[in-house]
C-alpha cells in the first residue's frame, strides 16, 4: 500500500492491521494518521487494529493522534481497536488524565481481530 510514513499497514481479510514499532515523533504520527485513512478509503476496510505493543511510551500528543485516528476511521466506516498497550503506558496515561475513552481496546492482535469478526457476525456497522 502506498504510504507517506514508514509504518506498514497490512490487509487481513476485510480489516486492516498496523503495528507501530518505532518512536512516534510528531511528523511520523501525523503521516501515520494520513496513511491509515487513505488505506481505509482504498480498501473499504470495515475494521482497523492498531498494535502498539512496541511503544514504550505514549504521551498525550501521540495518544490523541491515536484516539483521533480511531474517530476519523469510524466516520469512514471502519471500527478501530487499539491492542497491546503496555502496563506502564496505560498507568502513565491514566495518571495524566487521558484514558482514551473513545477507543475500543483488546489485549493483543488476535483478540482485536476476533472482536472485529464478532462485530461483523452480529451485523453491526
Amino acid at each position, binding site marked *: 500500500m502506498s504510504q507517506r510514513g514508514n509504518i506498514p499497514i497490512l490487509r487481513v481479510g476485510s480489516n486492516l492491521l498496523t503495528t507501530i514499532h518505532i518512536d512516534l515523533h510528531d511528523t511520523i504520527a501525523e503521516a501515520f494518521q494520513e496513511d491509515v485513512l487513505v488505506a481505509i478509503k482504498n480498501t473499504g476496510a470495515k475494521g482497523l487494529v492498531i498494535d502498539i505493543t512496541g511503544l514504550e511510551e505514549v504521551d498525550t500528543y501521540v495518544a490523541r493522534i491515536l484516539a483521533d485516528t480511531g474517530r476519523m476511521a469510524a466516520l469512514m466506516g471502519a471500527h478501530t481497536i487499539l491492542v497491546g498497550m503496555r*502496563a506502564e503506558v*496505560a*498507568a502513565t*496515561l*491514566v495518571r495524566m488524565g487521558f*484514558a482514551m475513552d473513545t477507543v475500543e481496546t483488546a*489485549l493483543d492482535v488476535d*483478540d482485536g481481530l*476476533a472482536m472485529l469478526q464478532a462485530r461483523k*457476525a452480529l451485523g453491526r456497522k
Partner: protein
Amino acid sequence: MNRAVPAPRSLSETLKFDARELNSRRTFFQLSDDDLARLKGLRPFAERHMDDVVEDFYRLILSHPEARRFFPDDETIRRVKRLQRDYFLQLFDGVCDLAYVENRLRVGAAHERIGMAPRWYIGAYRHYLAILLDRITADVPDPAEARASYQSMLRLVGFDMSLAIDAYIAANLDTLGRHQAAIRELSTPVIKVHDHILLLPLVGAIDSERAQQIMEAVLLRVIGEKARAIIIDIAGVPVVDTRVADHLLKTTAAVRLVGGKVILTGISAQVARTIVQLGVDISTMYTVAELSEGIELALGLVGKQISTGAT
C-alpha cells in the same frame, strides 16, 4: 514486561566501586604503593605471628558476653579462626586492587547476614590493631621503622573498615527493599480463578501509594495472564471515600486500556450510599454486591467473548 530480578552482581558492581573510586578511597586513606610494599616486606613477620594473633584476637572477643553470641559453637569458632588467618595474611600480600576490594566487601555483607552491627567489628578492628602494635614494637628494633610499619597497617585496616561498613549499609538497604517488596506482594494478592479471570480481594485501607501499587500489580497480571476480566472485591476495605473511589476508577480505566475489564464486588449498602452521596460516577464500572455474582458476571463476559469470537 515484568520487573526483572537483576542477575546477581559482584558487590563492587552493586556499590559502583570502580577503579576511580578505588583510587579516590586509597588517596583518602593515604594508602600508597609504598605502604603496600612495606606490608609485603612484613610477610615473614605475619606468618610468624599469625596463629598467636588470631588466638589473642578471639580471646578478647569471646570474653565479651554479647559479642560471644555471634559464635554459638566450637565449630563456628574454628571456622572463623581459619577465615581470620586468611584475612590476616592478605593484609601482607602487598596488593590492594578491585579483587581485594570485592573480598573485603564480602566480609561486611556476611556480617550483615548474621546480624552483626558495625559497632562490633569496629571494636574488633581496634583489638586487632592493638595486638599488631604490641607485636611490631617487640619485633622491629628500630622505633622509626616500627612506627612506619604500624602506620601502613593502620591505613590498610582503616581502608578495610570503610569497605566493611559500605557493604553492611548496602546489604541492609537491600534487605529492607526485599521486605518492602514482600509486603507489596502480600497487599495485592491477585489470584487466578479461571482461564482469563483474575480475582483481587482487597483488605485494609487504601492510600494513594498503595493505590498505585495495586494499579501496577493488576496491570502486570492482567497482561501476563492474558486476563479478560479482573474482579476486585472491596468487602475488606474499611473506608471507601471519594479518593478510594477515584483510585478504583483509575485502575478500571487503565485495565480497559490494556484490553481487560474490571468487575467491582463486595459493595456494602453503606459503600453504595457513600458513593451516591459523594456524587462519584462509577457508571463505567461493572459492579455487583456479592463476589459470587462477580464471578458469574466474569464468566459471562469471557464466555460471550469466546463464543462470539469463534463464530
